[in-house]
């Protein structure tokens, strides 16, 4: 009886009795969700256009962040460093397209997935050799990212909003808006969508697959760079950060591999869900349930919609 009370009633009593903490939990979940969504976006972009499940996305986040910091450490002013880092991401996209994707065109998905694992290995080796293994701090001042926090009194307590988190949410929103515009309104965006629908049909109307792949990998690189800066500003950039990218996977299956709005809404559901779960139910099980709760939430949704919330419905014919 007591344990039932602890599981079913007590968490809600806590939510009501300390509404400021409840709000804070939701805010933390929101921020985490936005950041998961940012990483998930990188996956979605590549999956949509080339059907590749890019295992290297997490490593690209780390690599992009470290490149930027390395340029800054060399004394390059922040805006120029940003441009140079974007340039490196472009070079990376071209290299990957030339050496990995082009020779593997028309192979089964799982082979391409495997190839991205090879890319991860290479990025780890190259990255550690160039940048070293120490965690690096993002110079928040140079990017004019705000620091400190706002404390909003609420319900007799307070809700603390980190300015950097607010900035992260705004930048992520802008990023997503820009990507949506790019996909819906521009010529390249239309070409990308055409490729996503059917490679062969796109080729037959004269769309260059190679070019499209460079563009999506480049776009994923930029998303990775932004994600790297944001995570880096919250903690720091180190090779351990790549495991955080695994958190984007439940977001992906929840939202659907091919949907940009899915990545965002999935991110928010996972972020808020896991924070509330960990905060209110975690202590009952000894804590740390965050590591698998996201997958369980996603699995729950998946049982009802096997292709994710916004994924394309798979129609199977014989």
């Amino acid at each position: 009886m007591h344990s039932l009370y602890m599981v079913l009633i007590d968490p809600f009593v806590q939510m009501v009795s300390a509404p400021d903490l409840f709000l804070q939990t939701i805010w933390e979940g929101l921020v985490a969700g936005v950041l998961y969504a940012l990483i998930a976006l990188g996956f979605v972009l590549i999956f949509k256009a080339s059907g590749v499940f890019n295992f290297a996305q997490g490593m690209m986040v780390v690599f992009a962040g470290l490149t930027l910091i390395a340029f800054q450490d060399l004394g390059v002013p922040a805006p120029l460093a940003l441009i140079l880092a974007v340039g490196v991401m472009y070079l990376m996209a071209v290299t990957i397209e030339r050496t990995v994707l082009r020779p593997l065109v028309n192979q089964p998905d799982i082979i391409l997935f495997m190839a991205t694992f090879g890319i991860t290995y290479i990025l780890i080796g190259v990255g550690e050799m160039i940048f070293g293994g120490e965690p690096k701090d993002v110079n928040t001042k140079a990017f004019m990212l705000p620091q400190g926090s706002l404390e909003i009194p609420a319900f007799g307590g307070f809700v603390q909003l980190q300015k950097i988190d607010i900035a992260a949410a705004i930048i992520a929103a802008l990023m997503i808006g820009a990507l949506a515009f790019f996909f819906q309104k521009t010529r390249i965006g239309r070409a990308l969508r055409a490729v996503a629908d059917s490679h062969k049909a796109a080729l037959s109307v004269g769309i260059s697959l190679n070019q499209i792949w460079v563009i999506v990998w480049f776009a994923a690189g930029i998303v990775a760079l932004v994600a790297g800066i944001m995570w880096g500003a919250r903690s720091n950039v180190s090779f351990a950060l790549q495991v955080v990218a695994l958190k984007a996977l439940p977001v992906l299956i929840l939202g659907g591999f091919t949907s940009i709005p899915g990545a965002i809404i999935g991110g928010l559901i996972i972020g808020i869900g896991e924070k509330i779960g960990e905060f209110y139910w975690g202590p009952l099980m000894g804590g740390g349930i965050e590591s698998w709760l996201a997958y369980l939430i996603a699995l729950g949704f998946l049982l009802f919609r096997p292709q994710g919330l916004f994924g394309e419905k798979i129609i199977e014919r014989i």
Partner: protein
Amino acid sequence: MFYREAGQYKTSYPSDMAVFPIAQDRIGIGLILAAAFIFIPMVASDFIMSSVMIPFLVFSLAAIGLNILTGYTGLISLGTGAFMGVGAYACYKLTTIFPGVNIIVWIIVSGFFSAFVGIIFGIPSLRIKGFYLAVATLAAQFFLQWCFVRIPWLYNYNASGAIEVGTRTLFGIPIVGPNATPEVRYYVLLCIVVALTWIASNIVHGRIGRSWMAVRDMDIAAELMGIKLLDTKLLAFAVSSFYAGVAGACMMFLWYGGGEASDAFNINQSFNILFMVIIGGLGSLIGSFFGAAFISMLPTVLKFGLPAIGIPLSGATAEHLIHIMVGGLIIFFLIVEPHGLARLWQIGKQKLRMWPFPY
């Protein structure tokens, strides 16, 4: 010239359906077994035994398990590491509760526990497919790994959360524990691997294997042909997890010899085994061995082999270079032969049949 089936007539159905229909293949497999049982223990040093051969065999077993699921049934799983962990912890609990029973029995029995857990996490596979299923199996990976840390009963309330492997003997010879020599552990492991491979080969070539492959190629069509999808898929999960569980128990007891087990069965392990299956060749038992050799041996061989032949590599730089080389080789092999090393093997055999007069 020597490798040709000309003149070998099949006079009965069983001989026609044999796994190795050609006499040369049977000789070949005999030679490989002879090498594994006699030649390698004779020439290999303790280091090669314990750091190259034993890990290779453990991973081969795990790769066979995953190949049954991914290669033969078409279900991608990223939870192999955790299923291995279930086997290891089950074996540990069994041998501490019943220390009188021989450890080899428990290593095999622990596979059944793993199979049971595998069935539970396999249930969603009926609705979820492809990469969606892969990510869903990550739920198993993370949940089970959390259990390994959070349920102290599993590691007998050990203060360090470690599995402690005492000495266990067979006919008076220690086969598990610090006093067991690498040779003895290798032989025990080799016997387990050979036996289980033989069983797997019979399963995949028989009725069950065919129904798995039918499901892999198109599950709706398979259903229309009268194959029960749920039963078939869950059976694949069970058998696959059984192999993974035995591999996990072998890993802890015959290779690691105890220690911090929760960390040994992490997500990277699951990825590694999936990659062994892919690079070895999906739907090929021999490919599982190739893949395990490639992924598990290559870094070790590069790390200790290169300095030994005079290429000075040391410390961190070596590690970075090895990462780059392994990554590069993976991509290289995928480009050369996307169907895995097993296909290269087949092509080689085909070439050999024509040799020396190819047309």
